[in-house]
């Protein structure tokens, strides 16, 4: 990469300089505070209300600023950075349209509990409320989709607010925090006093669990004959993959990982059943439907996992729920054993006493299902199928790459056929399902992981929602491998229209899409295309061997569907298995 990812001066030197009690502007306070929080990289786009901030960044080299080509690209990149590193992602945009362009990205991060600090400029405090040029009430607009937000009214408050924002974003149930800085606040000067303490009276997340509840869970496990673990994104966010592995091995409970939980448990494990829910495996869904004990770990019984709640896990005797957010307990399903706390802390305690369930027969049944009902696709006629492409990517990277996805069929195929091994190796918009997320989030993931292979898997629809960010890959030589699974339609919509709307295909044809190879080349990025399996193997190897960014288009048939599929309104027992059997 052309972007320098190593610090330019020693940490001690930097810290000493930063702590100086200089008379500086709000903008300089912002930059110093970001550095004190350990920020290495921000994604942003300048404009009128953040001119003082960008002026302070002139010649500034203590962290990287990547100029995206759309604010939405900036926030998705910050999101990809945060998900793949566990650090807080930071982005900056100007007031009005700059700020509103962040809204989709903020909602995306909020739904998936991703720690972001989002900085927006606003018009000067004396103009607020006057419908001034490029004024928007962004704290008001984003109130339902932020964990917290601040409108800074006084430059004196800035160090405290920034310190609080980072703390709130990355503790408890993580999430985006917005800081709206009016232009005069970014210009006003004061003596910088770095904030070291955090004291927020109304914010004190529960980390350590109530041990009595965990003991109850352990007792229920010992008595259970058909236990199932549903592990979600909370495992990954709490850095609890090791604890989860120990817990599963000690308790001998079959485990299913949700879309966001996929990288929290290695897919090769003998007790792993795949993903549950709408496009989950036969094994996982069948296990949930026959379970006598369900243990949700850092997962929130999302409707894409449970599908119709009347008929979800009908044989269950007890449901246990481990979550850092008490509001998730009992929100969607009745919970018998609530364990509020940080997943890592809960599992670490549980592992000190965990004993196996009476699950031998149950495991055998599960493993037979896995053997008899594997994920399949019809590969008979030799065409290049999308699932084949994902399998090829999985095999050639040995499941070690960081994979970002967009939203739709390719996302589900990536979830089904990429064999994830390491935590934080899948970056995908699960809760909000944001198209246009896949590619820019990969740029952020690569910035956060300069030495890792980052692959972005997109459809031809979503790729066109943020394709402009090819520019920053080109100019900074960010070596993301951009995969486009091109089936020439909005595939997931097509699938629903075929199966649920009686083949009435309405506005799904993506005719008129650009030649993606030429599009890449227009930005100065290498473009490759494959239409057959042989070409696919060849160009994919070429892409992997290319040091810089590459766009690889795989042209696949239109009519391929994602199976298994549970139709909206059905229970997860009602899986359509497709024609692959």
């Amino acid at each position, binding site marked *: 990469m052309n972007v320098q990812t190593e610090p330019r001066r020693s940490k001690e030197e930097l810290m000493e300089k930063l702590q100086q009690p200089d008379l500086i502007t709000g903008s300089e306070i912002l930059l110093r505070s970001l550095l004190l929080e350990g920020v290495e990289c921000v994604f942003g786009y300048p404009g009128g209300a953040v001119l003082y901030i960008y002026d302070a960044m002139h010649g500034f080299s203590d962290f990287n600023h990547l100029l995206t080509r759309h604010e939405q690209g900036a926030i998705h990149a910050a999101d990809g950075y945060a998900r793949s590193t566990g650090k807080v992602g930071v982005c900056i945009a100007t007031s009005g349209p700059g700020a509103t362009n962040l809204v989709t990205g903020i909602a995306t991060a909020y739904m998936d509990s991703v720690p972001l600090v989002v900085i927006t400029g606003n018009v000067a405090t004396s103009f607020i409320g006057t419908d001034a040029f490029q004024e928007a009430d962004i*704290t*008001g607009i984003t*109130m*339902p989709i932020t*964990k*917290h937000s601040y*409108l800074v009214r006084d430059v004196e408050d800035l160090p405290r607010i920034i310190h609080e924002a980072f703390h*709130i974003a990355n503790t408890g*149930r993580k999430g985006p925090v917005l800081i709206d800085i009016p232009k005069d606040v970014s210009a006003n000067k004061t003596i910088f006093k770095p904030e070291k303490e955090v004291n*927020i*009276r*109304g*914010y004190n997340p529960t980390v350590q669990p109530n041990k009595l509840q965990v003991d109850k869970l352990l007792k229920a496990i010992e008595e259970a004959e058909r236990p199932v673990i549903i592990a979600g994104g909370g495992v990954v966010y709490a850095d609890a993959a090791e604890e989860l592995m120990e817990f599963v091995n000690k308790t001998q409970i079959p485990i299913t990982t949700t879309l966001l939980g996929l990288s929290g448990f290695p897919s090769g494990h003998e007790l792993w059943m795949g993903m549950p829910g709408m496009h989950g495996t036969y094994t996982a869904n069948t296990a949930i439907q026959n379970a006598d004990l369900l243990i949700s770990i850092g997962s929130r019984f999302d409707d894409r996992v449970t599908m119709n709640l009347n008929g979800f896990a009908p044989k269950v005797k007890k449901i246990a729920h481990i979550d850092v*957010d*008490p*509001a998730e*307990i*009992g*929100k969607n399903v009745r919970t018998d054993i609530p364990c509020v706390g940080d997943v890592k802390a809960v599992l670490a305690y549980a592992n000190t006493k965990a004993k196996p369930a009476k699950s031998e027969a149950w495991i055998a049944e599960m493993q037979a299902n896995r053997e008899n009902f594997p994920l399949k696709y019809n590969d008979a006629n030799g065409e290049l199928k999308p699932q084949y492409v994902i399998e090829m990517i999985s095999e050639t990277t040995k499941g070690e790459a960081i994979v970002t996805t967009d939203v739709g069929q390719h996302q589900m195929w990536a979830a089904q056929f990429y064999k994830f091994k390491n935590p934080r190796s899948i970056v995908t918009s699960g809760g909000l399902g944001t198209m246009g997320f896949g590619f820019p989030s990969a740029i952020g993931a690569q910035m956060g992981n300069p030495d890792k292979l980052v692959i972005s898997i997109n459809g031809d629809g979503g790729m066109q929602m943020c394709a402009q960010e090819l520019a920053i890959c080109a100019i900074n030589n960010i070596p993301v491998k951009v995969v486009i699974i091109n089936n020439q339609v909005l595939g997931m919509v097509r699938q629903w229209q075929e199966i649920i709307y009686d083949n009435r295909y309405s506005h799904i044809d993506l005719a008129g899409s650009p030649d993606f190879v030429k599009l890449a080349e227009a930005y100065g990025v290498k473009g490759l295309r494959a239409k057959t399996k042989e070409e696919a193997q060849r160009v994919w190897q070429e892409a992997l061997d290319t040091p810089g960014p590459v766009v690889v288009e795989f042209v696949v048939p239109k009519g391929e569907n994602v199976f298994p599929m549970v139709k909206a309104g059905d229970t997860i027992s009602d899986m359509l298995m497709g024609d692959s059997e």
Partner: protein
Amino acid sequence: MMTTKHTVSVLVNNQPGVLQRVSGLFGRRGFNIESITVGESEELGLSRMVIVTTGDDNTLEQISKQLYKLIDVIKVIDLSSNPMVARELALIKVNAEPASRPEILGIVETFRAAVVDIGPNSIIVQVVGDSDKIDAMVELLRPYGIRELSRTGATAMIRGSVR
């Protein structure tokens, strides 16, 4: 599950936008607000909101938990699960031609309400009490013609014998 009326006290940081945060939360989560009152509390910098809402036990639990997720919320108490005192104030501008005044004043007296303004054809009655009392007062005055009605919504606290 049974849907019942609850009075919830919410202690919040007196920050700009805090009312919007709380009312917005009720709106987007589909919780009902029957009335909401806000004012200073016993502690400088904190305000107390008293919200009257309806819902079953699950809803009430969610309301409390979701409120606690707001950084500016310090404490949430379901007052109605305790013996409590709830009071509301109403101002009622009612038609009062000289001929009908004695009757109206009779009602006012019975309710221990007060007349706070007298005009040529109307009077303003101020009544304090629980919401049922105010409902009853309003019904009794309705036949005379209510020109304007303004109610504060209930504020409440737990009785002194508790805790």
